[in-house]
């Protein structure tokens, strides 16, 4: 396999944090994400099923959003910790993360 860093000059590794949760949380979440040090985010509308049952877009209080944040490991850790503490108990939410190679590492 090609070593990661060889693929493009200024490639570097960052965390991609993905959060899937209730649309109602959108404003709060984005505030948190920025406050915790991320420089951007991307949102798509989603539907799904988990421990809190089916959530599809038909009825606005039960639709989901899928939020992605590319950031360094420290910020990722902060986001995961904060969300676990503040939202996990009462909201439909999952969070997972993985390593990604980014092209303009200075952006994130």
């Amino acid at each position, binding site marked *: 396999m090609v070593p990661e860093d060889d693929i493009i000059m200024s490639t570097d590794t960052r965390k991609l944090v993905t959060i899937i949760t209730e649309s109602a949380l959108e404003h709060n979440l984005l505030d948190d994400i920025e406050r915790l040090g991320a420089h951007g985010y991307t949102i798509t509308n989603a539907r799904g099923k988990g421990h809190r049952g089916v959530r599809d877009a038909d009825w606005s*209080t039960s639709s989901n959003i899928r939020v992605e944040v590319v950031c360094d490991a420290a910020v990722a850790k902060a986001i995961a910790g904060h969300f676990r503490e503040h939202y996990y108990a009462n909201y439909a939410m999952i969070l997972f993360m993985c390593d990604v190679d980014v092209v303009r590492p200075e952006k994130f």
Partner: protein
Amino acid sequence: MTPLDPIVLFFILGLIAGVLRSELRLPPAIYEGLTVLLLISIGLKGGIELAKQPFAELVGPVFSVMLMGFLLPLVAYPVLRYLGHFKRPDAASIAAHYGSVSVGTFAVAVAYLASHDISFESYMPLMVVILEVPAILVGIIMARGISRETRWGKLSHEVLLGKGVVLLVGGMLIGWVAGPVGVEPIAPLFFDLFKAILALFLLEMGLIAASQISSLRRYGLFLVGFGILFPLFSAVVGGWLGLMLGMSTGGVMMLATLAASGSYIAVPAAMRLTVPEANPTLSISASLGVTFPFNILVGIPLYLQFAKLLHGSGG
């Protein structure tokens, strides 16, 4: 309008299709568009009439209706907490839903009175707006006390500038400023199509209500009973208040309907953010799965009978 009015029939069609698990569904954008049209129509019509009314006459109704908005959830809470054995946040959240109002129910009542040629006080849309807020405050305080954590500023911004309030109040102001002649060029959409738009809206509401039934089965009979009996109680309170305020038969019926209806848009959104421990399924399935259908199919005709009775012309 009998139960066989096409508007009600569209609701029943939606209910049946939903219960049979049809794939029928209006696109969310269309459903939202219909809601916008209904809110503007109701506001406009109220605003046009309002222009004819001295402002001083509003003071009494505004304050007493606001008071009712504070009191109804205070009555609902202990019933839910001690009779229904709901957890504190759940009881508070459900109580808030029933203290507030449903614009969809109001729209059907408007159409119902129109088809019976019964007029009502023009400031009624304003009462819808006024009833939206107090119940939310009471709900939050019952759930968590006057907590510092609650961001009241942000909350009141969200409630007061929510879609419902802006369109109702905005529509009223436009109708008030433009007057009946000014509004004429836009009447073909906002007035002539009102009933058909309401019919489509109710089709989707039927589908949504049907989708709540499975949750209801899970949460039991108490919620079903509450979703029927508490509105009946509220209707009596609302109707009586209307009478005290010297309202016409139509106005009494309207205030009874408003009192009897439960919120399913503004309150759920506010509760989700401020009382997250409350299970949103409980309140939504009661409000949408029981009370909304009950009011459309049974309540509204009943409240008119009741209003006539109060006015001594019951029939």
